[in-house]
Protein backbone atom coordinates (compact mmCIF):
# COMPACT_ATOMS: atom_id res chain seq x y z
CA UNK A 1 0.00 0.00 0.00
CA UNK A 2 1.23 3.48 -0.77
CA UNK A 3 1.59 5.74 2.31
CA UNK A 4 0.75 8.92 0.51
CA UNK A 5 0.10 9.48 -3.17
CA UNK A 6 3.35 10.72 -4.63
CA UNK A 7 5.76 10.04 -7.48
CA UNK A 8 9.16 8.39 -7.72
CA UNK A 9 11.48 9.88 -5.15
CA UNK A 10 14.49 10.32 -7.42
CA UNK A 11 12.63 11.96 -10.26
CA UNK A 12 11.84 15.66 -10.54
CA UNK A 13 10.08 17.49 -13.33
CA UNK A 14 12.69 19.25 -15.44
CA UNK A 15 12.19 21.99 -17.99
CA UNK A 16 13.09 19.54 -20.73
CA UNK A 17 10.48 17.00 -19.55
CA UNK A 18 7.82 19.71 -19.33
CA UNK A 19 8.68 20.96 -22.81
CA UNK A 20 8.40 17.42 -24.20
CA UNK A 21 5.04 16.95 -22.50
CA UNK A 22 3.76 20.28 -23.85
CA UNK A 23 4.96 19.45 -27.37
CA UNK A 24 2.73 16.35 -27.21
CA UNK A 25 -0.30 18.57 -26.55
CA UNK A 26 0.04 20.62 -29.73
CA UNK A 27 2.50 20.90 -32.62
CA UNK A 28 1.99 24.69 -32.50
CA UNK A 29 4.23 26.12 -29.72
CA UNK A 30 1.90 29.16 -29.31
CA UNK A 31 -1.15 26.94 -28.68
CA UNK A 32 0.54 24.69 -26.10
CA UNK A 33 -0.13 26.98 -23.11
CA UNK A 34 -3.87 27.16 -23.83
CA UNK A 35 -4.06 23.39 -24.37
CA UNK A 36 -2.27 22.79 -21.09
CA UNK A 37 -4.79 24.97 -19.23
CA UNK A 38 -7.74 23.15 -20.82
CA UNK A 39 -6.36 19.75 -19.87
CA UNK A 40 -5.52 20.96 -16.39
CA UNK A 41 -9.09 22.24 -15.93
CA UNK A 42 -10.64 18.93 -17.03
CA UNK A 43 -8.43 16.84 -14.77
CA UNK A 44 -8.97 19.19 -11.85
CA UNK A 45 -12.71 18.70 -12.39
CA UNK A 46 -12.26 14.93 -12.52
CA UNK A 47 -10.43 14.76 -9.19
CA UNK A 48 -12.76 17.26 -7.58
CA UNK A 49 -15.81 15.31 -8.79
CA UNK A 50 -14.27 12.23 -7.17
CA UNK A 51 -14.15 14.07 -3.86
CA UNK A 52 -10.42 14.56 -3.67
CA UNK A 53 -9.61 17.14 -1.02
CA UNK A 54 -6.75 18.73 -3.00
CA UNK A 55 -7.45 18.10 -6.70
CA UNK A 56 -4.63 20.35 -7.94
CA UNK A 57 -2.01 18.20 -6.20
CA UNK A 58 -3.27 15.08 -7.92
CA UNK A 59 -3.37 16.84 -11.30
CA UNK A 60 0.28 17.85 -10.80
CA UNK A 61 1.23 14.27 -9.89
CA UNK A 62 -0.56 12.93 -12.98
CA UNK A 63 1.15 15.41 -15.30
CA UNK A 64 4.55 14.74 -13.70
CA UNK A 65 4.09 11.02 -14.24
CA UNK A 66 3.10 11.52 -17.86
CA UNK A 67 6.13 13.77 -18.42
CA UNK A 68 8.42 11.21 -16.78
CA UNK A 69 7.13 8.44 -19.05
CA UNK A 70 7.53 10.63 -22.14
CA UNK A 71 11.14 11.43 -21.07
CA UNK A 72 11.73 7.67 -20.69
CA UNK A 73 10.82 7.22 -24.35
CA UNK A 74 7.10 6.41 -24.18
CA UNK A 75 5.36 7.35 -27.40
CA UNK A 76 2.17 9.28 -26.69
CA UNK A 77 -0.23 9.85 -29.58
CA UNK A 78 -3.23 11.05 -27.58
CA UNK A 79 -1.98 12.89 -24.48
CA UNK A 80 -5.50 13.38 -23.01
CA UNK A 81 -6.25 9.62 -23.23
CA UNK A 82 -2.80 8.79 -21.91
CA UNK A 83 -3.23 11.22 -19.03
CA UNK A 84 -6.69 9.77 -18.30
CA UNK A 85 -5.16 6.36 -17.65
CA UNK A 86 -2.53 7.86 -15.38
CA UNK A 87 -5.12 9.97 -13.53
CA UNK A 88 -7.26 6.91 -12.84
CA UNK A 89 -4.26 5.13 -11.31
CA UNK A 90 -3.41 8.17 -9.22
CA UNK A 91 -7.02 8.31 -8.04
CA UNK A 92 -7.03 4.61 -7.12
CA UNK A 93 -3.82 5.09 -5.13
CA UNK A 94 -5.39 8.09 -3.43
CA UNK A 95 -8.43 6.05 -2.39
CA UNK A 96 -6.20 3.35 -0.94
CA UNK A 97 -3.91 5.75 0.89
CA UNK A 98 -4.36 6.57 4.63
CA UNK A 99 -5.22 10.20 3.75
CA UNK A 100 -8.60 8.81 2.62
CA UNK A 101 -10.36 8.42 5.93
CA UNK A 102 -14.00 8.61 4.87
CA UNK A 103 -15.62 5.52 3.39
CA UNK A 104 -17.17 5.67 -0.09
CA UNK A 105 -20.82 6.56 -0.60
CA UNK A 106 -22.91 3.38 -0.68
CA UNK A 107 -19.67 1.61 -1.49
CA UNK A 108 -19.75 3.39 -4.83
CA UNK A 109 -18.39 6.95 -4.88
CA UNK A 110 -15.67 7.71 -2.37
CA UNK A 111 -16.05 10.91 -0.34
CA UNK A 112 -12.99 12.97 0.45
CA UNK A 113 -14.85 15.43 2.64
CA UNK A 114 -17.94 15.37 4.76
CA UNK A 115 -20.81 16.55 2.56
CA UNK A 116 -21.83 19.92 3.85
CA UNK A 117 -24.79 21.16 1.80
CA UNK A 118 -26.19 24.63 2.13
CA UNK A 119 -27.18 25.72 5.63
CA UNK A 120 -30.55 27.43 5.95
CA UNK A 121 -30.23 31.10 4.92
CA UNK A 122 -29.21 33.20 7.87
CA UNK A 123 -29.04 37.00 8.28
CA UNK A 124 -25.33 36.76 7.60
CA UNK A 125 -26.02 34.85 4.40
CA UNK A 126 -28.48 37.52 3.27
CA UNK A 127 -25.82 40.18 3.81
CA UNK A 128 -23.38 37.98 1.90
CA UNK A 129 -25.88 37.70 -0.96
CA UNK A 130 -26.26 41.50 -1.09
CA UNK A 131 -22.49 41.88 -1.17
CA UNK A 132 -22.26 39.33 -3.96
CA UNK A 133 -25.06 41.11 -5.81
CA UNK A 134 -23.20 44.42 -5.56
CA UNK A 135 -20.19 42.72 -7.13
CA UNK A 136 -22.38 41.14 -9.80
CA UNK A 137 -23.91 44.54 -10.64
CA UNK A 138 -20.42 45.90 -11.09
CA UNK A 139 -19.24 42.91 -13.12
CA UNK A 140 -22.36 42.95 -15.32
CA UNK A 141 -21.60 46.54 -16.26
CA UNK A 142 -18.44 45.34 -17.99
CA UNK A 143 -20.59 43.31 -20.41
CA UNK A 144 -21.88 44.87 -23.63
CA UNK A 145 -25.45 46.12 -23.06
CA UNK A 146 -27.05 43.50 -25.36
CA UNK A 147 -25.17 40.69 -23.64
CA UNK A 148 -26.17 42.01 -20.23
CA UNK A 149 -29.82 42.07 -21.29
CA UNK A 150 -29.53 38.50 -22.57
CA UNK A 151 -28.14 37.39 -19.19
CA UNK A 152 -31.14 39.00 -17.48
CA UNK A 153 -33.63 37.39 -19.86
CA UNK A 154 -31.91 34.01 -19.82
CA UNK A 155 -31.68 33.66 -16.06
CA UNK A 156 -35.03 35.22 -15.18
CA UNK A 157 -36.93 32.32 -13.64
CA UNK A 158 -40.46 32.29 -14.96
CA UNK A 159 -41.53 28.72 -15.58
CA UNK A 160 -43.84 28.92 -18.60
CA UNK A 161 -42.22 31.78 -20.48
CA UNK A 162 -38.67 30.62 -19.84
CA UNK A 163 -38.44 28.11 -22.71
CA UNK A 164 -39.97 30.52 -25.22
CA UNK A 165 -37.75 33.34 -24.03
CA UNK A 166 -34.59 31.29 -24.45
CA UNK A 167 -35.76 30.22 -27.89
CA UNK A 168 -36.34 33.86 -28.76
CA UNK A 169 -32.83 34.86 -27.59
CA UNK A 170 -31.30 32.06 -29.69
CA UNK A 171 -33.26 33.26 -32.72
CA UNK A 172 -32.17 36.85 -32.12
CA UNK A 173 -28.54 35.73 -32.05
CA UNK A 174 -29.01 33.36 -34.96
CA UNK A 175 -27.68 30.33 -33.08
CA UNK A 176 -29.08 27.03 -31.85
CA UNK A 177 -30.40 26.68 -28.30
CA UNK A 178 -27.49 24.35 -27.52
CA UNK A 179 -25.02 26.99 -28.69
CA UNK A 180 -26.89 29.57 -26.60
CA UNK A 181 -26.46 27.43 -23.48
CA UNK A 182 -22.72 27.23 -24.14
CA UNK A 183 -22.51 30.97 -24.79
CA UNK A 184 -24.34 31.75 -21.55
CA UNK A 185 -22.06 29.34 -19.72
CA UNK A 186 -19.00 31.24 -20.99
CA UNK A 187 -20.49 34.59 -19.90
CA UNK A 188 -21.39 33.07 -16.55
CA UNK A 189 -17.82 31.81 -16.11
CA UNK A 190 -16.52 35.33 -16.75
CA UNK A 191 -19.00 36.81 -14.29
CA UNK A 192 -18.15 34.25 -11.59
CA UNK A 193 -14.43 34.93 -11.98
CA UNK A 194 -15.13 38.66 -11.74
CA UNK A 195 -17.35 38.18 -8.64
CA UNK A 196 -14.67 36.10 -6.91
CA UNK A 197 -12.08 38.80 -7.60
CA UNK A 198 -14.44 41.54 -6.43
CA UNK A 199 -15.27 39.67 -3.19
CA UNK A 200 -11.56 39.18 -2.52
CA UNK A 201 -11.00 42.92 -2.95
CA UNK A 202 -13.89 43.61 -0.54
CA UNK A 203 -12.44 41.20 1.98
CA UNK A 204 -8.95 42.74 1.71
CA UNK A 205 -10.39 46.24 2.08
CA UNK A 206 -12.31 45.16 5.18
CA UNK A 207 -9.18 43.65 6.69
CA UNK A 208 -7.33 46.87 5.95
CA UNK A 209 -9.97 48.98 7.73
CA UNK A 210 -10.06 46.57 10.67
CA UNK A 211 -6.33 47.20 11.14
CA UNK A 212 -6.84 50.97 11.38
CA UNK A 213 -7.05 51.92 15.10
CA UNK A 214 -10.26 53.75 16.00
Amino acid at each position, binding site marked *: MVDRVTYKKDWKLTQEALDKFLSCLSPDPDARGAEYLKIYQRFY*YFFERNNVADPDRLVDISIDRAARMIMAGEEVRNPAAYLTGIARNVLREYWKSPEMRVEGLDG*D*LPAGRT*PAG*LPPPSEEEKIELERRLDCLERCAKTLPEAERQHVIDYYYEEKRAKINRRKQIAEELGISQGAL*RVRMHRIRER*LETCITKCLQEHSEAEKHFERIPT
Partner: protein
Amino acid sequence: MSAIKQEDRLIRYLLGDLPAQDREQVEARYLEDEDFFTELQVAEDEIIDAYVNGRLTARNRALFEKNFLNSDRRRERVHSARALMTFARRHRAAPARDQVSPWQRAREFFRVDYPLRQWALVSGLLVALVGGGWLWFEVVRLRSQLADAQAAQSRRLEEVNQRLMDLARVNQELKEASSAEREKLEQEREQLRQDVERLEQQVSTNTLVSAVLEVEPGGITRGAPQKQITISIPAAAKRVRLQLDLKSDDYTRYETVLLNDLGQEVRRDSITSTKTAKGRSIILRIPAQDLPAGGYRLLVDGVTEQNETRGVGEFLIRVVRK
Protein backbone atom coordinates in the same frame (compact mmCIF):
# COMPACT_ATOMS: atom_id res chain seq x y z
CA MET B 1 -27.63 8.50 -27.55
CA SER B 2 -30.33 11.18 -27.72
CA ALA B 3 -29.61 14.66 -26.36
CA ILE B 4 -32.15 14.22 -23.53
CA LYS B 5 -30.67 10.88 -22.53
CA GLN B 6 -27.22 12.39 -22.69
CA GLU B 7 -28.24 15.33 -20.50
CA ASP B 8 -29.96 13.02 -18.04
CA ARG B 9 -26.81 10.93 -17.86
CA LEU B 10 -24.68 14.00 -17.15
CA ILE B 11 -27.11 15.17 -14.49
CA ARG B 12 -27.02 11.76 -12.85
CA TYR B 13 -23.22 11.84 -13.00
CA LEU B 14 -23.18 15.23 -11.29
CA LEU B 15 -25.58 13.95 -8.62
CA GLY B 16 -23.37 10.90 -8.02
CA ASP B 17 -26.24 8.70 -9.18
CA LEU B 18 -24.56 6.71 -11.98
CA PRO B 19 -23.28 3.15 -11.63
CA ALA B 20 -19.47 2.89 -11.52
CA GLN B 21 -19.13 1.65 -15.12
CA ASP B 22 -21.23 4.49 -16.58
CA ARG B 23 -19.42 7.00 -14.42
CA GLU B 24 -16.06 5.88 -15.79
CA GLN B 25 -17.37 6.19 -19.34
CA VAL B 26 -18.53 9.74 -18.73
CA GLU B 27 -15.22 10.64 -17.11
CA ALA B 28 -13.13 9.09 -19.87
CA ARG B 29 -15.10 11.03 -22.42
CA TYR B 30 -14.89 14.46 -20.82
CA LEU B 31 -11.21 14.01 -19.97
CA GLU B 32 -10.47 13.38 -23.62
CA ASP B 33 -13.09 15.52 -25.33
CA GLU B 34 -13.10 19.27 -24.74
CA ASP B 35 -16.60 19.76 -26.22
CA PHE B 36 -18.08 17.05 -24.05
CA PHE B 37 -16.48 18.69 -21.04
CA THR B 38 -18.25 21.95 -21.99
CA GLU B 39 -21.55 20.03 -22.17
CA LEU B 40 -20.89 18.73 -18.68
CA GLN B 41 -20.22 22.24 -17.41
CA VAL B 42 -23.45 23.51 -18.99
CA ALA B 43 -25.30 20.62 -17.30
CA GLU B 44 -23.67 21.69 -14.04
CA ASP B 45 -25.04 25.22 -14.57
CA GLU B 46 -28.50 23.76 -15.15
CA ILE B 47 -28.53 21.59 -12.06
CA ILE B 48 -27.23 24.41 -9.87
CA ASP B 49 -29.99 26.69 -11.18
CA ALA B 50 -32.60 24.00 -10.59
CA TYR B 51 -31.38 23.61 -7.00
CA VAL B 52 -31.36 27.36 -6.35
CA ASN B 53 -34.87 27.72 -7.78
CA GLY B 54 -36.20 24.73 -5.84
CA ARG B 55 -36.93 22.70 -8.97
CA LEU B 56 -35.20 19.47 -7.89
CA THR B 57 -37.16 16.49 -6.62
CA ALA B 58 -36.63 15.60 -2.97
CA ARG B 59 -34.40 12.68 -3.95
CA ASN B 60 -32.26 14.70 -6.34
CA ARG B 61 -32.05 17.53 -3.86
CA ALA B 62 -30.73 15.14 -1.23
CA LEU B 63 -28.22 13.69 -3.72
CA PHE B 64 -27.17 17.19 -4.77
CA GLU B 65 -26.51 18.27 -1.19
CA LYS B 66 -24.74 15.04 -0.37
CA ASN B 67 -22.62 14.47 -3.49
CA PHE B 68 -22.34 17.81 -5.23
CA LEU B 69 -22.08 20.45 -2.52
CA ASN B 70 -18.98 18.93 -1.01
CA SER B 71 -16.40 21.30 -2.41
CA ASP B 72 -15.81 24.98 -1.73
CA ARG B 73 -15.76 25.75 -5.45
CA ARG B 74 -19.20 24.20 -6.02
CA ARG B 75 -20.71 25.88 -2.96
CA GLU B 76 -19.28 29.14 -4.26
CA ARG B 77 -20.95 28.47 -7.63
CA VAL B 78 -24.29 27.93 -5.90
CA HIS B 79 -23.96 31.27 -4.07
CA SER B 80 -23.13 33.00 -7.35
CA ALA B 81 -26.10 31.32 -9.06
CA ARG B 82 -28.40 32.61 -6.32
CA ALA B 83 -26.99 36.12 -6.90
CA LEU B 84 -27.44 35.73 -10.66
CA MET B 85 -31.12 34.71 -10.30
CA THR B 86 -31.79 37.63 -7.94
CA PHE B 87 -29.99 39.98 -10.31
CA ALA B 88 -32.12 38.78 -13.25
CA ARG B 89 -35.34 39.04 -11.19
CA ARG B 90 -34.59 42.60 -10.06
CA HIS B 91 -33.63 43.83 -13.49
CA ARG B 92 -36.32 41.93 -15.33
CA ALA B 93 -38.97 43.34 -12.98
CA ALA B 94 -37.90 46.85 -13.97
CA PRO B 95 -38.48 48.00 -17.57
CA ALA B 96 -35.48 48.89 -19.73
CA ARG B 97 -33.57 51.72 -18.12
CA ASP B 98 -33.95 54.22 -20.94
CA GLN B 99 -37.74 53.72 -20.98
CA VAL B 100 -38.15 54.36 -17.28
CA SER B 101 -39.37 57.67 -15.93
CA PRO B 102 -37.38 59.32 -13.14
CA TRP B 103 -40.22 58.58 -10.69
CA GLN B 104 -40.15 54.89 -11.60
CA ARG B 105 -36.40 54.89 -11.10
CA ALA B 106 -36.84 56.50 -7.69
CA ARG B 107 -39.46 53.89 -6.73
CA GLU B 108 -37.14 51.10 -7.94
CA PHE B 109 -34.29 52.57 -5.92
CA PHE B 110 -36.25 52.40 -2.67
CA ARG B 111 -37.94 49.05 -3.23
CA VAL B 112 -38.57 46.66 -0.31
CA ASP B 113 -35.57 44.62 -1.48
CA TYR B 114 -33.34 47.47 -0.33
CA PRO B 115 -34.16 47.99 3.39
CA LEU B 116 -30.89 49.83 3.94
CA ARG B 117 -31.80 52.42 1.29
CA GLN B 118 -35.25 52.82 2.83
CA TRP B 119 -33.74 53.48 6.25
CA ALA B 120 -31.29 55.91 4.67
CA LEU B 121 -34.20 57.73 2.98
CA VAL B 122 -36.27 57.98 6.17
CA SER B 123 -33.25 59.14 8.19
CA GLY B 124 -32.32 61.64 5.49
CA LEU B 125 -35.85 63.06 5.39
CA LEU B 126 -35.94 63.38 9.18
CA VAL B 127 -32.60 65.17 9.25
CA ALA B 128 -33.72 67.45 6.39
CA LEU B 129 -37.04 68.17 8.17
CA VAL B 130 -35.47 68.99 11.54
CA GLY B 131 -32.50 70.82 10.00
CA GLY B 132 -34.70 72.73 7.56
CA GLY B 133 -37.10 73.76 10.33
CA TRP B 134 -34.24 75.00 12.46
CA LEU B 135 -32.70 76.90 9.53
CA TRP B 136 -36.04 78.51 8.69
CA PHE B 137 -36.47 79.58 12.30
CA GLU B 138 -32.95 81.01 12.34
CA VAL B 139 -33.51 82.93 9.09
CA VAL B 140 -36.72 84.46 10.41
CA ARG B 141 -35.03 85.42 13.68
CA LEU B 142 -32.01 86.96 11.94
CA ARG B 143 -34.20 88.84 9.47
CA SER B 144 -36.16 90.27 12.34
CA GLN B 145 -32.92 91.35 14.09
CA LEU B 146 -31.62 92.89 10.88
CA ALA B 147 -34.86 94.85 10.33
CA ASP B 148 -34.70 96.16 13.93
CA ALA B 149 -31.06 97.18 13.50
CA GLN B 150 -31.80 98.92 10.19
CA ALA B 151 -34.75 100.78 11.70
CA ALA B 152 -32.62 101.93 14.62
CA GLN B 153 -29.88 102.99 12.24
CA SER B 154 -32.32 105.01 10.13
CA ARG B 155 -33.73 106.71 13.21
CA ARG B 156 -30.24 107.71 14.33
CA LEU B 157 -29.37 109.03 10.88
CA GLU B 158 -32.53 111.09 10.79
CA GLU B 159 -31.64 112.44 14.19
CA VAL B 160 -28.11 113.37 13.06
CA ASN B 161 -29.50 115.13 10.02
CA GLN B 162 -32.01 117.00 12.15
CA ARG B 163 -29.32 118.08 14.60
CA LEU B 164 -27.07 119.26 11.75
CA MET B 165 -29.87 121.38 10.42
CA ASP B 166 -30.49 122.79 13.88
CA LEU B 167 -26.80 123.58 14.15
CA ALA B 168 -26.87 125.42 10.82
CA ARG B 169 -29.94 127.37 11.97
CA VAL B 170 -28.28 128.29 15.27
CA ASN B 171 -25.13 129.42 13.42
CA GLN B 172 -27.27 131.68 11.25
CA GLU B 173 -29.16 133.08 14.25
CA LEU B 174 -25.88 133.59 16.07
CA LYS B 175 -24.67 135.89 13.38
CA GLU B 176 -27.73 138.01 13.80
CA ALA B 177 -28.20 137.87 17.59
CA SER B 178 -27.22 140.31 20.36
CA SER B 179 -24.46 139.44 22.84
CA ALA B 180 -26.85 138.02 25.51
CA GLU B 181 -28.66 136.00 22.98
CA ARG B 182 -25.31 135.09 21.44
CA GLU B 183 -24.12 133.53 24.71
CA LYS B 184 -27.31 131.52 24.99
CA LEU B 185 -27.00 130.42 21.39
CA GLU B 186 -23.34 129.54 21.93
CA GLN B 187 -24.38 127.16 24.70
CA GLU B 188 -27.07 125.72 22.50
CA ARG B 189 -24.54 125.29 19.66
CA GLU B 190 -22.11 123.53 21.98
CA GLN B 191 -24.87 121.22 23.14
CA LEU B 192 -25.84 120.49 19.54
CA ARG B 193 -22.23 119.92 18.54
CA GLN B 194 -21.87 117.38 21.34
CA ASP B 195 -25.13 115.71 20.27
CA VAL B 196 -23.92 115.45 16.71
CA GLU B 197 -20.58 114.05 17.81
CA ARG B 198 -22.31 111.48 20.01
CA LEU B 199 -24.72 110.46 17.29
CA GLU B 200 -21.99 110.28 14.65
CA GLN B 201 -20.02 108.09 16.99
CA GLN B 202 -23.04 105.79 17.34
CA VAL B 203 -23.46 105.66 13.57
CA SER B 204 -19.78 104.82 13.11
CA THR B 205 -19.94 101.98 15.57
CA ASN B 206 -22.95 100.66 13.66
CA THR B 207 -20.65 100.53 10.64
CA LEU B 208 -22.75 102.77 8.43
CA VAL B 209 -21.63 106.08 6.96
CA SER B 210 -24.11 108.58 5.65
CA ALA B 211 -23.77 111.69 3.54
CA VAL B 212 -26.43 114.08 2.30
CA LEU B 213 -26.28 115.93 -1.02
CA GLU B 214 -28.82 118.28 -2.49
CA VAL B 215 -29.89 117.92 -6.12
CA GLU B 216 -30.94 121.21 -7.62
CA PRO B 217 -33.97 121.37 -9.88
CA GLY B 218 -33.31 121.95 -13.55
CA GLY B 219 -30.46 120.75 -15.68
CA ILE B 220 -26.79 120.98 -14.97
CA THR B 221 -23.69 121.26 -17.04
CA ARG B 222 -21.58 118.16 -17.03
CA GLY B 223 -18.03 118.80 -15.82
CA ALA B 224 -19.16 121.52 -13.38
CA PRO B 225 -19.73 119.72 -10.07
CA GLN B 226 -22.40 121.28 -7.89
CA LYS B 227 -20.76 120.32 -4.63
CA GLN B 228 -17.72 118.58 -3.17
CA ILE B 229 -17.95 116.60 0.03
CA THR B 230 -15.61 114.43 2.07
CA ILE B 231 -16.75 111.14 3.52
CA SER B 232 -14.73 109.61 6.28
CA ILE B 233 -15.27 105.85 6.40
CA PRO B 234 -14.27 103.98 9.58
CA ALA B 235 -12.44 100.70 9.10
CA ALA B 236 -15.37 98.79 10.61
CA ALA B 237 -17.94 100.36 8.27
CA LYS B 238 -19.77 97.91 6.08
CA ARG B 239 -21.88 100.26 3.99
CA VAL B 240 -22.02 103.89 2.94
CA ARG B 241 -25.39 105.57 2.57
CA LEU B 242 -25.53 108.53 0.19
CA GLN B 243 -28.75 110.51 0.39
CA LEU B 244 -29.40 112.87 -2.49
CA ASP B 245 -32.20 115.21 -1.47
CA LEU B 246 -34.29 116.42 -4.40
CA LYS B 247 -35.52 119.97 -4.40
CA SER B 248 -38.16 118.80 -6.86
CA ASP B 249 -38.93 115.28 -8.01
CA ASP B 250 -39.55 115.68 -11.76
CA TYR B 251 -38.47 112.29 -13.06
CA THR B 252 -39.83 108.74 -13.04
CA ARG B 253 -36.45 107.33 -12.08
CA TYR B 254 -32.83 108.31 -11.71
CA GLU B 255 -29.62 106.86 -13.13
CA THR B 256 -26.50 107.30 -11.01
CA VAL B 257 -22.93 106.55 -12.07
CA LEU B 258 -20.01 106.61 -9.66
CA LEU B 259 -16.60 107.08 -11.27
CA ASN B 260 -13.24 106.86 -9.53
CA ASP B 261 -10.49 109.46 -10.02
CA LEU B 262 -9.23 107.52 -13.05
CA GLY B 263 -12.63 107.91 -14.69
CA GLN B 264 -13.42 104.20 -14.30
CA GLU B 265 -16.97 103.24 -13.45
CA VAL B 266 -17.23 101.94 -9.89
CA ARG B 267 -20.95 101.28 -9.94
CA ARG B 268 -24.17 102.18 -11.72
CA ASP B 269 -27.66 102.28 -10.20
CA SER B 270 -31.13 102.87 -11.56
CA ILE B 271 -33.48 103.91 -8.75
CA THR B 272 -36.65 105.78 -7.97
CA SER B 273 -36.92 108.46 -5.32
CA THR B 274 -38.15 107.65 -1.84
CA LYS B 275 -39.91 109.73 0.79
CA THR B 276 -37.64 111.00 3.54
CA ALA B 277 -37.81 113.68 6.24
CA LYS B 278 -36.55 116.13 3.63
CA GLY B 279 -39.25 115.34 1.11
CA ARG B 280 -38.13 113.13 -1.81
CA SER B 281 -34.61 111.71 -1.95
CA ILE B 282 -32.52 109.26 -3.90
CA ILE B 283 -30.74 106.90 -1.54
CA LEU B 284 -27.64 104.97 -2.62
CA ARG B 285 -26.34 102.20 -0.45
CA ILE B 286 -22.77 101.33 -1.41
CA PRO B 287 -20.67 98.57 0.18
CA ALA B 288 -17.78 100.33 1.97
CA GLN B 289 -15.31 97.92 0.41
CA ASP B 290 -16.19 99.37 -3.02
CA LEU B 291 -14.94 102.79 -1.91
CA PRO B 292 -11.19 102.80 -1.27
CA ALA B 293 -9.69 106.15 -0.25
CA GLY B 294 -9.56 108.59 -3.18
CA GLY B 295 -11.56 110.96 -5.30
CA TYR B 296 -14.89 110.04 -6.93
CA ARG B 297 -17.33 111.74 -9.23
CA LEU B 298 -21.05 110.96 -8.85
CA LEU B 299 -23.21 111.72 -11.89
CA VAL B 300 -27.00 111.82 -11.47
CA ASP B 301 -29.37 111.72 -14.43
CA GLY B 302 -33.15 111.97 -14.36
CA VAL B 303 -35.17 109.76 -16.73
CA THR B 304 -38.51 111.11 -17.98
CA GLU B 305 -41.68 109.18 -18.78
CA GLN B 306 -40.64 109.39 -22.44
CA ASN B 307 -37.40 107.71 -21.46
CA GLU B 308 -35.37 110.84 -22.07
CA THR B 309 -32.32 111.34 -19.88
CA ARG B 310 -31.24 114.65 -18.42
CA GLY B 311 -28.30 115.46 -16.16
CA VAL B 312 -29.57 116.68 -12.78
CA GLY B 313 -26.55 116.45 -10.52
CA GLU B 314 -22.78 116.04 -10.39
CA PHE B 315 -20.81 115.77 -7.17
CA LEU B 316 -17.18 115.36 -6.22
CA ILE B 317 -16.71 113.03 -3.29
CA ARG B 318 -13.45 112.54 -1.44
CA VAL B 319 -13.28 109.34 0.52
CA VAL B 320 -11.01 109.15 3.51
CA ARG B 321 -10.47 105.81 5.27
CA LYS B 322 -9.94 105.93 9.03
